[in-house]
């Protein structure tokens, strides 16, 4: 086998690395718009899922344009923030800020029967990684119409169950304010919620830490909407 000088080895590896680097950067730049679109479509699917509309990847954008009639951003005082695109708000970054500095996206949807629903995103920590989802409320700004949750790396069969319909269905019809109008959030109760409790759902057996994480997430994210929801309730 031919012997190679050190200079040759250095030149060879430099050329190889430059070629590879150019190739990969070009590919990343060319494919990025397509990848971003996929992420957006998934987000739209999730938003639609919270108002119990199942959209496939193909019709997600059409359905989104049809059902989501308005979207805007509010602050913790309940005032609308102008000039911010609700869809573009990065929840992962927002939840790291203190409550009164965050931007809270709100999506308004009009269903086929003419009723109006308001959708808010939630995001927080599960056991192993982030949990996130969307809650939709009836126009009393209190009763949950639908919920959808997802996660990145919760344990399959245990914590990951938050992504199943069976778990999410429990949220339908629950209320986040009690009769006196105090914010209660939704409790995810180990051992099962008392029958008929309007503010609690059953936790997942074996998924206690994920359930706790989700409960904290709901409380944290929803508390930012209290002011806005109260204002809307008064206007009614």
């Amino acid at each position, binding site marked *: *086998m*031919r012997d*190679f000088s050190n200079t*040759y*080895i250095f030149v*060879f*590896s430099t050329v*190889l*690395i430059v070629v*590879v680097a150019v*190739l*990969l950067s070009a*590919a*990343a730049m060319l*494919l990025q718009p*397509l*990848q971003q679109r*996929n992420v957006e*479509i*998934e987000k739209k699917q999730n938003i639609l899922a919270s108002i119990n509309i199942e959209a496939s*990847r193909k019709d997600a954008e059409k359905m989104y344009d049809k059902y989501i009639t308005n979207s805007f951003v509010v602050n913790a005082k309940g005032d609308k923030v102008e000039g911010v695109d609700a869809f573009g708000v990065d929840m992962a970054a927002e939840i790291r800020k203190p409550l009164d500095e965050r931007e809270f996206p709100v999506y308004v949807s009009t269903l086929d029967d003419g009723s109006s629903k308001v959708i808010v995103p939630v995001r927080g920590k599960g056991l192993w990684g982030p949990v996130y989802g969307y809650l939709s409320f009836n126009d009393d700004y209190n009763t949950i119409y639908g919920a959808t949750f997802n996660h990145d790396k919760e344990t399959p069969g245990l914590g990951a169950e938050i992504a199943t319909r069976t778990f999410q269905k429990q949220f339908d019809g629950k209320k986040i304010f009690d009769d006196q109008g105090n914010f209660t959030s939704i409790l995810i109760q180990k051992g099962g919620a008392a029958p008929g409790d309007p503010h609690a759902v059953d936790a997942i057996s074996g998924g206690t830490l994920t359930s706790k994480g989700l409960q904290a997430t709901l409380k944290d994210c929803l508390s930012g909407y209290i002011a806005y929801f109260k204002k809307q309730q008064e206007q009614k």
Partner: protein
Amino acid sequence: MSEKEPLFSSKNLKLITDPLNTNNPITVQVLGICSALAITVKLEPAIVMALSVMAVLVVANVVISLLRKSIPPRIRIIVQLVVIASMVILVDQVLKAFAYDVSKQLSVFVGLIITNCILMGRLEAFAMANKPWPSFLDAIGNASGYGLILIIVAFFRELLGSGTLFDYPVLEKIGLYKTGYENNGLMILPPMALITIGIIIWVQRSKNRELIEEK
């Protein structure tokens, strides 16, 4: 090197057919088991994984074979890894752009193609010493041998574990559930993939006596 070898000489054809059976990377060389256990729950990801491995292996084998005389032996392993790694990143990016759902299912295992021993093995053992065309055939053969086992395992795991094929509810359509049949939940978990591969190895060895080691 006086006569030009025909493109599909019997020697070249053996490069494709051997890895399918007597020199299969999974069942005979027992390489690439990790990914074979992880992504064979359903047929679709298994097929995408097989195609991804084929794309990476074919390009890497041909590239290394073209460069084989100019790669300094002292850094050849690094060079091989760079070629494999960049191909894997390319495949990952393409999947994210064009097959987002599947790429989510395969998740980390596309990236882990880099560590799949089949690839390094073929580059080091074959492409470093052979011309591009035989290397190309060798890559096709080995990737097919890998993919074949993946698909066989995924077929049984999806059918018996979820009762579907390509997410089409086969068992429900033929009315098997009405007779009291239930899906075997264990088939979805990795241990059953190992057992399925074990059964395939058993069947293969009982048919090919020459694979059995002498005592």
